[in-house]
């Protein structure tokens, strides 16, 4: 099918400044049990094409599920008409932007394909996990899920560009809710953070059985735990909370389209301005952040972005200093500064925009014990459960599922409903410890919302456990 579409596009390519065709097919299956009952099994197949035309200074797009010759021809005509009719109203002269015409391929690992395990065996696996989650009458809801995605794309340009990419993705999830008649707590497998590229071999490294036992045990511990104390203290964040912290208060504010104002009506603006790049001290000298689409198995790894730019690892923040934004080829042209290969669309029916992909905090040195050994009093938090930040991505408040007090260099009592709040511009400067490789997890989330029209996209975040000083923490009402 893809080959036929490519042949038609070559034959129908119009005489315009730039034209691209992105064919995307995403097949997925979700198998999940709730309270030991198999929920409706869903099989999805999302397939279509997006045409983009730059012509006469304008840009236009057209998304179509009709991949016949007439369908592609009509989509090209529509996209061209949009470019022509809005050319004199465009934010930039699109004809002056040199668009790449790449060739290449990418396919993530898939050692044990999803299709290699029978549906009945998948259900048996989830039922076994479900039984391990229901350990007590106080566990009132429990579920286990396997979500498989195969995302395939072909990107063609009028300059001979042709890129074929395939991502095999697996997202396992476990969750329980426990209730004692007064309070309800939730504990899960890192939110949905263990989202990775790969096949069923990913499950081997997770030990889901042990995770199920731990999740159930910790939920019951939380039920009888006191609320997190309210104080300004040392805060240590596990990777499955660092993921959210990186995402909201480094990733989004550094998206160049936000800084250029495109997102101000919806996702918001940024406290970061163009003049800060190259000089602004974003965090302490311990903070090193990379945009890295080359990490093997991370959720948003790829070889080319959706405008054909070759994806390479770049430092975004080095030793705390801000180096470059998350800006794609068009945003780079508008801002006149280098960026990264991060123009991405969540499917065939949306145009690509500046997104995060894999945005990672680089590891430092030492294990968790080393991170907390010098803390007289503090709080250690795991797994995001609540997230809120202002539209400039500065004032934030985040909540976690699970926490322990740190007293005299050791983890002690479990406390529930842990929250903390701060301001991005000062929070990262209080980064006082970065764990080593042994504390690092490669995680990701399938849910990052942005753009008009709206899009939800998958992003990856790898991080070690990190320590922050002078943070306001608090518990429940």
């Amino acid at each position, binding site marked *: 099918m893809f080959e036929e579409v490519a042949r038609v596009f070559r034959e129908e390519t119009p005489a315009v400044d730039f034209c691209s065709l992105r064919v995307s097919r995403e097949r997925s299956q979700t198998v999940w049990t709730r309270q030991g*009952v*198999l929920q*409706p*099994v*869903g*099989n*999805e*197949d*999302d*397939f*279509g094409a997006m045409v983009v035309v730059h012509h006469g200074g304008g*840009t*236009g*797009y*057209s*998304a*179509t*599920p*009709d991949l016949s010759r007439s*369908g592609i021809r009509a989509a090209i005509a*529509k996209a061209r008409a*949009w*470019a022509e*009719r*809005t050319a004199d*109203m*465009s*934010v930039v002269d699109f004809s002056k932007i040199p668009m790449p015409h790449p060739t290449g391929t990418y396919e993530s690992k898939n050692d044990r394909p999803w299709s290699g395990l029978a*549906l009945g065996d998948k*259900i048996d696996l989830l039922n076994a996990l479900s039984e391990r989650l229901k350990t007590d009458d106080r566990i009132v*809801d429990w579920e286990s899920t396997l979500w498989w995605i195969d995302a395939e794309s072909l990107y063609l340009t009028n300059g001979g560009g042709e890129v074929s990419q395939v991502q095999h993705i697996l997202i396992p999830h476990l969750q329980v*809710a426990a*209730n004692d008649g*007064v*309070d*309800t707590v939730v504990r899960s497998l890192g939110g949905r953070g263990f989202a990775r590229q790969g096949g069923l071999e990913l499950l081997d490294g997770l030990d889901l059985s042990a995770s199920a036992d731990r999740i159930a045990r910790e939920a019951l511990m939380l039920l009888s735990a006191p609320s997190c104390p309210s104080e300004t203290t040392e805060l240590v964040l596990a990777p499955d909370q660092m993921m959210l912290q990186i995402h909201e208060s480094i990733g989004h504010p550094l998206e160049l389209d936000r800084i250029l*104002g*495109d997102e*101000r*009506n919806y996702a*918001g603006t940024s406290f970061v301005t163009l003049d800060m790049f190259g000089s602004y001290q974003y965090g302490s000298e311990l903070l090193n952040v990379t945009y890295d689409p080359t990490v093997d198995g991370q959720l948003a790894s790829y070889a080319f972005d959706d405008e054909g730019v070759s994806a390479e690892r770049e430092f975004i923040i080095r030793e705390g200093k801000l180096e470059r934004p998350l800006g794609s080829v068009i945003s780079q042209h508008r801002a006149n500064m280098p960026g990264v290969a991060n123009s991405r669309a969540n499917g065939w*029916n949306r*145009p690509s925009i500046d997104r995060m992909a894999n945005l990672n905090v680089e590891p430092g040195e030492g294990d968790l014990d080393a991170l907390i050994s010098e803390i007289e009093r503090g709080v250690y938090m795991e797994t995001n459960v*609540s*997230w*809120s930040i*202002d*539209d400039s991505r500065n*004032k934030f*408040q985040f*909540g976690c599922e699970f926490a322990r007090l740190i007293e005299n260099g050791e983890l002690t009592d479990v406390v529930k409903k842990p*929250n903390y*709040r701060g*301001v991005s511009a000062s929070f990262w400067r209080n980064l006082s410890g970065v764990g080593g490789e042994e504390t690092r997890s490669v995680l990701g989330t399938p849910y990052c*919302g942005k753009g*008009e*029209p*709206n899009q939800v996209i998958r992003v990856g975040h790898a991080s070690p456990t990190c320590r922050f000083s002078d943070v306001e923490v608090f518990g*429940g*009402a």
Partner: protein
Amino acid sequence: MQSSFYKLVDQLTEGLQGEEVLLCSVAGERSDFVRLNGAKVRQAGSVEQGTLSIELVQGARHVSASYVLSGDGEQDFVRGGEVLGALREQLPFLPEDPHLMFNREVESTETRGHGELPETADAIRQVVDVGQGLDVVGIWASGEIMSGFANSLGQRNWFSAENFHFDWSVYQGGDKATKCGYAGTAWSGDELRRRMDRARVEVQALARKPKTVERGEYRVYLSPTALSEITDLMSWDGFGMKAQKSKVSPLMKAVDGDVRFDPRVSLSDNPSSGRSPGFDAKGFVKPPSVTLIDSGVYKDSLVSARSAAEFGVATTGANAGESPTCLEMAGGGLAEADVLKELGTGLWINNLWYLNYSDRPACKMTGMTRFATLWVEGGEVVAPVNVMRFDDSVFRILGEGLVDLTAEPQLMLSAMTYGKRDMGSSCLPGALVDGFCLTL
């Protein structure tokens, strides 16, 4: 799309075997989207899509699939046959589902809305013209949206609408802006100019030196738009039967009768408004209205077909997430013209943003002010306010903290476009609240 959808379901029904039942839904749109920044076009384009969802039922076993319709009837039928075959192969691996429920009584309905829509490029040129000198940022969305249901029992349901929704902001600078909207089925360039002129005046008020308020408790006016952010978050697991039975609903204390809202608070979900489909993916036709909170007391819940089977109650035709689609709150006794005077000294909050729970069982939520929040003294607007975080319980905000609700609820249509253009809406008053807790 309606006739081709019905024809496709007829064709697929002919291929059913034995006692198989087929449930089909389609969701589609033919939309134009134009994105603006600085009163100029950033991205402009069209999206044409229709996704068919198929559920194959055999006894108490069932399995589902979805695929994108190409628009070619023959090709879509062949694809549908392949999908049905694949589903048929999966069925033997599946256990019987004790919570399977679908409508076995044929209830066919049809709602078709027609609009007088402008040529989008012409409308955008008007926007650019009337927005001259203003920093206009936003999204234009227009065209036809449709949703349908059909099953092998002969039921047919259709909903379609033709409308436009221009959702935009006019920025004064930094993060200070006035939020605007113009949605409908009949476009008027004069109406656009009137709304843009009003924004031109409003944004001037934001040019004053902004005030930074300290943490503390304040008397605030929450505009209908701001209040909708609160009810949107309440709607996340709040009103659904499944979340309530699972004890994760943030409204558990109200559901259990431990908490009452102010007697002036009455909330309902009203699918009969005709702004969204009045049927679900299992073929159930929604009741005209479900009363959620009646005079401060929690009353009924939203129940999907699956929850109905699981908990032995009647379905309300709710979606799987059991969230309202047309949430309405009764008005109070406060005339809109008196809001400033009754606010006296405090904050006029036009918009809230990025709400989430800080303590779900306590229905305590946090979020930010956004766009235009104004400091008011003696009933007069004094200055825009720099963004502030609130952290407060809805049980208090709409309970002991509620001073009054405005008399005339305001209709707000969803501007969301995740996946496709949303058909949701809410109709809410503004709320005057004492002791609103600002924390950062």
